[in-house]
């Protein structure tokens, strides 16, 4: 079933030590005009191992972008910690600068993240200049462009972003992230603004970089198909927390959390009756008590949770934060009750 060919070091037992790790991470933004603080990331444990591609999926406003940015030290955390290669993230400017040499961000909209007055060469060389790269700048830029699939690189050196297509621009952004030879890239919706036919090419590029360079990646997306295409593991986020995590084959083909089930059921090709949740995720400054999904939960609404005897727990009892391990984990009272019953019976 899950015997899909796997690349690189992703799943060789025993699991290697995580490259990037978040522990009990919280990020809150102060509320305006005395409103309660916005708990954008509300307790997350997440590990990314070397050479592993993890997809972080969720709807807009669920905190996935804030989590990604806090992992790169771009947003101060309120509590909890981030460790990279075993040592906690140091927020001193000098330390952050050297951290960002090893962990790079690829932004969503390539048109917005490239300076229209910089040539492709300047855009890619900027990181080298900031970090006072000792080697030959021209060779490094050419190498990065070639790795990102822009060949021959010299032809692109003097082009401006407006002279490139959308897919080429995204390749330039990726080349800019690759030029410092990082160990990890965090890609925020890397293909959301690209055409359907170009999308596959960029995803194939991320996969190839993992195979060739052992690059680890955290891909933030709302696109479950993307996770199926390239990720080893997936973490489903809802309202600041990860509600289900595990191997892609497990989570996407046999989802257990009602939210994951609903997300998968509304995809155009999904089997069975679609579960269209009503409304939108609640405001993260007013996280509901109990299970944070209970107000929209189809299992609770249908009375299924009450039959399993967990309806009260759903409304009042908060669920623990899921661990960062590789196994499948679900933050749901109903799933836990079912599993406990199956175990006992």
């Amino acid at each position: 079933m899950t015997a899909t060919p796997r690349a690189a070091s992703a799943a060789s037992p025993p699991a290697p030590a995580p490259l990037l790790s978040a522990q009990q991470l919280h990020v809150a933004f102060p509320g305006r005009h005395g409103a309660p603080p916005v708990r954008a990331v509300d307790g997350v444990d997440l590990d990314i191992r070397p050479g592993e591609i993890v997809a972080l999926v969720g709807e807009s406003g669920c905190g996935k972008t804030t989590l990604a940015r806090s992992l790169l030290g771009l947003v101060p955390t309120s509590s909890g910690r981030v460790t990279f290669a075993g040592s906690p993230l140091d927020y001193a400017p000098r330390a952050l600068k050297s951290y960002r040499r090893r962990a790079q961000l690829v932004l969503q909209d390539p048109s917005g993240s490239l300076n229209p007055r910089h040539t492709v060469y300047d855009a890619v060389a900027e990181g080298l200049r900031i970090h006072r790269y000792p080697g030959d700048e021209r060779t490094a830029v050419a190498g990065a462009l070639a790795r990102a699939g822009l060949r021959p690189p010299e032809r692109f050196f003097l082009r401006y972003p407006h002279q490139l297509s959308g897919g080429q621009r995204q390749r330039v952004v990726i080349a800019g992230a690759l030029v410092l030879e990082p160990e990890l890239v965090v890609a925020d919706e890397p293909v959301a603004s690209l055409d359907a036919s170009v999308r596959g090419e960029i995803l194939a590029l991320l996969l190839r970089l993992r195979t060739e360079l052992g690059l680890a990646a955290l891909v933030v997306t709302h696109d479950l198909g993307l996770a199926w295409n390239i990720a080893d593991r997936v973490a489903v986020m809802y309202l600041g927390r990860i509600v289900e995590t595990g191997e892609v084959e497990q989570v996407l083909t046999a989802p257990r959390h009602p939210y994951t089930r609903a997300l998968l059921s509304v995809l155009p090709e999904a089997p069975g009756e679609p579960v269209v949740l009503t409304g939108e995720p609640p405001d993260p400054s007013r996280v509901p008590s109990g299970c944070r999904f209970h107000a929209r939960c189809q299992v609770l609404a249908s009375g299924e949770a009450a039959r399993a005897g967990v309806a009260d727990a759903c409304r009042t009892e908060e669920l623990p934060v899921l661990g960062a391990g590789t196994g499948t984990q679900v933050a749901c009272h109903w799933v836990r009750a079912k599993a406990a019953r199956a175990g006992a019976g």
Partner: protein
Amino acid sequence: MKPSLLDVRNLEVTYPGGAAAVRGVSLALDAGQKLGIAGESGCGKSTLALALLRLLPPGTRVTGEVLLDGEDVLAMKWGRLRAVRWAGASIVFQGAMHSLNAVHRVGDQIAEPVLLHSGATPAAARKRTGELLEQVGLPAARAAAYPHELSGGQRQRVMIAMALACDPRLVIADEPTTALDVMVQAQILRLIEELVAEQELGLVMISHDLAVLADTCDRLAVMYAGRVVEEGPARDVYEDARHPYGRALSAAFPRIGDPAARFAPRGLPGDPPDPAGLPPGCTFHPRCPVALDTCGSQDQPLRDAGPGRRAACVRVEVPVGAGPGAGAGAGAWERPGTDAGQMPPSAVLTADGSTRAGRDDGSARVGADGSARAGADGSALPRTDGPAQAVADGSVCAAAGGSARAVPDAGAAVVSEYEDGAPAAVSESGGGTP
């Protein structure tokens, strides 16, 4: 016979800069039907949507016919056109963020077309606004909200309410769910489907996501470089596309659980072509994984590719027994405007073009329903004309092809009116060819 709700015939749009954005598109849609148009940015699908209601910027050359209930939108007087916009056909624009006015309450924006078109009193318009909002699943009280107070999905609902304000017969939805989350997308699609079914609307839905279109629509047309390259029943096109571009689009969004897509994202090398400088021959050949040598010089017409299906690819096998008669039947659904390009003159002369023989350069034009004939004497098909010749002929045919059908008199008049301008379009669109 009752005319189709929407019948687009050989539509061509050329922007002032010379970019041929739509190059001979023919489509038909009946009330209660849903037609999906798929393609990536720059393929002309949004231009097509705007052309249907003559919303293109001044200086744009539009030829062909857009028959809405049998009446040609392109030939309408200004006053009639104003009446038809909103009340006859309306558009749900892409990107609700930018299409709503940020400084007006959404209720006032929905009420505006009601006030202008039905001459309702302000109180009646307010009441209607409340009804419309409830119809799209928003509380009527949200009429007092400004766009920034609404979420993306709510704004899209407001756009839909606005499009329904004057009870149009046809709704054109341009990327109605792009940039929305999966769950909100599912809500909006379900809403659109319900409204179409309840009100017997015709829906033209434009998207780059073939999976979404296949799920929502009855028929699908795949566009590439300003032309329809494949069309047929939505599920068939999605599951078993005949044109290599259709196949690439349907593979771009993987089915979850499909082991073949795991760690194997599928894309298409290269970039969509620039409408101002299209490649010669089949416009898809530079990116085509199965291109033949001849594809670089020969344009490909839409041809029969199974029941109710057509595709514009040289590799599409013509079904056995598809004689000229059967072909003509299919040709009536959509007239392939530009297929005469590689029709050898001899074949053309034997064609049923006698009625049009008096017109100029009939040889090129008469081939207009040549997809069928190509089946009849398929051997003639892969004849190599010079590329320049092929393009020039094809374009002349495209411009004049409308006359090949000459169904309503009004339409024929319009076509002849445009005929003089056609050679100009030829030189423009053919400019990129060596």
